[in-house]
């Protein structure tokens, strides 16, 4: 509500981010853990297995878990140090209320009273302006039990259509493209299938920093002779030693894919049998690709002609292959088209659904996969169902024991939700696992929208940057303080185990949501006593949908160390109860799925995959005379998302303390900038001043800024809110910018610590 309740520096003084302090317990060299809890990392979609050392209700360290098959004990620095987020000075142990008379802007509030106030405000707003005047923003770094509950809470308890989630910033382009091409949204093969593959194409993914554990799979594939192709405007660690580097200009990926397919068509490097029997739509795509000659593509994409031809030859003639992509090609106003372009390349060769041949997006968040399946998306119902589909609505209304008429229709994406806040249509907001002030583009607009809300309640374990605008903050739980399931990059459902209890008045998020429902006097459907009970309902809710979890139990997850969905409780062909082991590989020849019912392996009535014309469109706010350089944004290995957690962990802060503007020495020379100089990067939305990092591992026409920091250090002050028309994902990876040397250090340099 309104402006911040205190000066930002005072809020920081009270609530951080401060550096973590190793507790006496964790520093003690003689304190042996009482027990080791097998669980998974709280950060990215790799969901590495690890063991947490617990003593006296504190996590004091970690021990590798070498048996978990995906990572076999391997970890990245974030997983190693995550435990320092516990016993943290900034941890919220009480509810808070906005209080302008308090030095730090917030005053502790009894939990019961906080819940009562939240319910009173929701009721007031919904009574005066209708249920749709209240919106919900959720996130994909929550267990699937919680993401399921959030979707149900918005539709059944709050009766608002306006719920969306932070996966809107992440997986929706890949999700939409997969839906259009395959009828299902999941990577096709386990990562282990990569080893023995002949060619692996990595399009727009900084694997080494964003999904580090995938690196060893790539290296092992290379040991068996795989050629690695990397497409990226920067030479990332995996690109450094790859076999073919495609230095694509930001925003031009679709042109590259079309040109490569065109070369393949010219040389007849196609699997005609697969195209003819298992796909539709190739002719329209072939027709589109004709305009993409190698010369034209080289000119548009900045990739040399010889490299385009080499990529086409290796990809076209391989017997086995993998293609991975990530946000590099998906974070565009053309993101769905880019992803469809890669799928066209895969389908043209028929190398999918087989050992050693597969395709997938590398999901970014812990539960980016599970979190996009069971209803917290604005158009979705559990089991990957569609909120506009009458049959799907009837089924879920039955599970939820409500009248189908009372189930709201589709809502809007997260950015549109903010436009509605700005327009005054949405007056109240509840957020969890989402920090839009840092993670949404053009975040000046987001700040102005947050200031317009009549009422804002945030659930979190630290006071994140967006929650500084909240009226009430409710103390939620860390991942290690709750139990549940998560679905990792391969579509493998895994078990998260509770290690410690939440401190003070903090409690599990699902309890908080249910307490609000009870205070609203709408408790029906929100009386679960454990995550297991929520999961049992989720199993029934997802049954019969494309993402079918009905055959999964907590016990099966522990026994098998994960289960790939779909995992049926009843055989989809015969209807008889079965003990299904899960489905590691999708689209295998002859496989049965409940949509095609035997006609083919893909999830359409005719069983065939779809080619889609993958249109190249120039980026919105592309380079221009006024803004001649490409700004691209991304991540660094020691920080995660908006930094709410990692910018509070000392060793991770030290590994990468502050954002830098990465630029090539030739560009730096024209601007008179030396490595370390204060530099201003400016776009149509705003300007920020950061130190330059002058390195030759980036295109000279491009600058790169990591986005994990807020406010004056926020790359998203500069990015453009252009969204893909189908997925609504924002165009983080490209916009026009200009750079010049700063005449002095920015004001914040003398005031803020690196992590603030």
């Amino acid at each position, binding site marked *: 509500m309104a402006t911040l309740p205190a000066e930002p520096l005072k809020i920081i003084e009270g609530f951080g981010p401060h550096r973590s302090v*190793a507790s006496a317990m964790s*520093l003690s*060299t003689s304190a042996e853990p009482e027990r080791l809890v097998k669980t998974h990392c709280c950060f990215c979609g790799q969901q590495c297995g690890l063991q947490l050392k617990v003593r006296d209700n504190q996590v004091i*360290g*970690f021990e*590798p878990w*070498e048996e978990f098959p995906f*990572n076999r*004990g*391997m*970890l*990245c*620095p974030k*997983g*190693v*140090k995550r435990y320092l987020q516990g016993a943290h000075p900034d941890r919220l142990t009480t509810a808070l209320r906005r209080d302008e008379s308090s030095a730090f802007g917030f005053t502790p509030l009894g939990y019961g009273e906080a819940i009562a106030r939240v319910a009173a405000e929701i009721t007031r707003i919904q009574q005066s302006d209708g249920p749709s005047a209240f919106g919900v923003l959720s996130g994909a770094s929550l267990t699937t039990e919680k993401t399921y509950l959030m979707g149900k809470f918005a539709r059944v308890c709050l009766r608002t259509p306006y719920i969306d989630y932070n996966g809107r910033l992440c997986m929706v382009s890949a999700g939409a493209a997969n839906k259009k091409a395959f009828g299902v949204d999941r990577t096709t093969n386990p990562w282990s299938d990569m080893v023995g593959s002949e060619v692996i194409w990595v399009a727009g993914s900084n694997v*080494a*920093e964003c999904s*580090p*554990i995938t*690196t*060893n799979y790539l*290296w*092992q594939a*290379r*040991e*068996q002779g795989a050629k690695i192709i990397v497409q990226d405007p920067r*030479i*990332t*660690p*995996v690109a*450094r*030693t790859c076999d073919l*580097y495609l*230095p694509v200009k930001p925003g031009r990926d679709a042109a590259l894919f079309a040109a490569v397919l065109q070369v393949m068509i010219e040389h007849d490097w196609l699997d005609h049998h697969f195209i003819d029997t298992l796909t539709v739509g190739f002719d329209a795509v072939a027709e589109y690709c004709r305009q993409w000659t190698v010369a034209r593509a080289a000119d548009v994409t*900045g990739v*040399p002609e010889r490299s385009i031809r080499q990529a086409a030859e290796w990809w076209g003639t391989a017997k086995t292959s993998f293609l991975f992509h990530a946000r590099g090609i998906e974070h565009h106003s053309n993101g769905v088209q880019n992803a469809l372009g890669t799928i066209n390349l895969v389908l043209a060769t028929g190398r999918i659904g087989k050992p050693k041949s597969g395709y997938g997006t590398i999901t970014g968040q812990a539960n980016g996969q599970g979190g996009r399946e069971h209803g917290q998306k604005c158009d979705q119902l559990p089991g990957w169902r569609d909120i506009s589909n009458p049959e799907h609505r009837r089924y879920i209304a039955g599970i939820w024991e409500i009248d189908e008429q009372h189930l709201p229709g589709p809502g809007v994406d997260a950015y549109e939700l903010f436009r509605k806040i700005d327009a005054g249509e949405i007056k109240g907001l509840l957020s969890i696992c989402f920090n839009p002030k840092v993670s949404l583009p053009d975040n000046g607009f987001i700040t102005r929208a947050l200031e317009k809300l009549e009422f804002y309640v945030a659930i979190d374990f630290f006071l994140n940057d967006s929650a500084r605008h909240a009226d009430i903050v409710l103390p939620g739980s860390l991942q290690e303080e709750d139990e549940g399931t998560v679905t990792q990059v391969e579509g493998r459902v895994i078990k998260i185990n509770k290690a410690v209890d939440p401190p003070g008045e903090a409690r599990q998020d699902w309890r908080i949501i249910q307490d609000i429902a009870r205070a609203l006097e709408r408790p029906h459907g929100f009386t679960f006593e454990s995550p297991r009970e929520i999961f049992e309902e989720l199993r029934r809710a997802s049954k019969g949908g494309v993402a079918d979890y009905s055959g999964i139990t907590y016990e099966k997850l522990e026994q098998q160390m994960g289960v790939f969905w779909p995992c049926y409780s009843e055989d989809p062909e015969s209807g008889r109860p079965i003990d299904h082991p899960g489905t590691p590989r999708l689209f295998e020849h002859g496989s049965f799925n409940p949509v095609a019912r035997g006609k083919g392996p893909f999830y359409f009535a005719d069983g065939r995959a779809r080619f889609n014309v993958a249109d190249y469109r120039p980026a919105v706010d592309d380079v221009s005379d006024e803004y001649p350089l490409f700004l691209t944004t991304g991540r660094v*290995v*020691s920080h995660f998302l908006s930094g709410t957690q990692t910018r509070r962990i000392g*060793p*991770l802060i030290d*590994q990468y303390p502050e954002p830098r503007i990465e630029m*090539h*020495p*030739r*560009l730096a020379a*024209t601007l008179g900038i030396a*490595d370390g100089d204060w530099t201003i990067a400016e776009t149509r939305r705003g300007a920020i001043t950061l130190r330059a990092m*002058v*390195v*030759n*591992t*980036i*295109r*000279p*026409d491009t600058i790169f800024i990591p986005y994990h920091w807020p406010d004056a250090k926020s790359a998203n002050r500069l990015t453009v809110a252009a969204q893909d028309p189908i997925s609504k994902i924002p165009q983080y990876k490209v916009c026009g910018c200009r750079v010049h040397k700063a005449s002095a250090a920015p004001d914040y340099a003398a005031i803020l610590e690196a992590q603030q």
Partner: protein
Amino acid sequence: MPKPEYLHFFIDPNRCIGCQACVQACTECDTHRGESMIHLEFIDRAHSVQTVPVVCMHCEQPTCAEVCPADAIKRSGDGVVQSARKPRCIACGNCVIACPFGVPEVYEDRQIMMKCDMCYDRTSVGKKPMCATVCPSQALFFGTREQIDQLRPMSRPVNRFQFGRQTISTRVFMMMPAEPLTTQPYLDVTSAMSEHPRQRSIALTVVSDPFAEVEL
């Protein structure tokens, strides 16, 4: 219990992605909490993202031990060269200067040299060193010779290094590309320093500007 003799440490710097999982995991050790005994450096960040991890190579005849005036560095029977022992270590820094690989560091505040001891608390009970366990690129690998031969057909392990006139054999292996090693069984480290490299060396190609074709 000694470190099992069939388990070895193998480093392949070419695989390193600079994530620092090794450094962060090393600092978790109870005996040197907060300090990393593995060092990770960018070779030349302005021109490359290449990084190289440095662990103690556990030499057969450790130069550090030989030059220590206080006899503070011991090599246990299983070949692991231990870190300097209090109260013998006088923090003179001889070992820092002498080590051909640049491993030991003197901590002035504690007046002691500390270095990697192959996670002796773990390896002496048959576990893997922490760095090699967590390394997501397996640039650091701990296992049997058979395992490394099977997993790395394109490389061979090397454990003999020539430093000027000194030939050094180590317990820790460096992975080298398989082909040149059929004729060159050791890595000539110092030849890269000279104008006219002697024959037994790995040729380094440095690309001064990988984006030379891109116009501004």
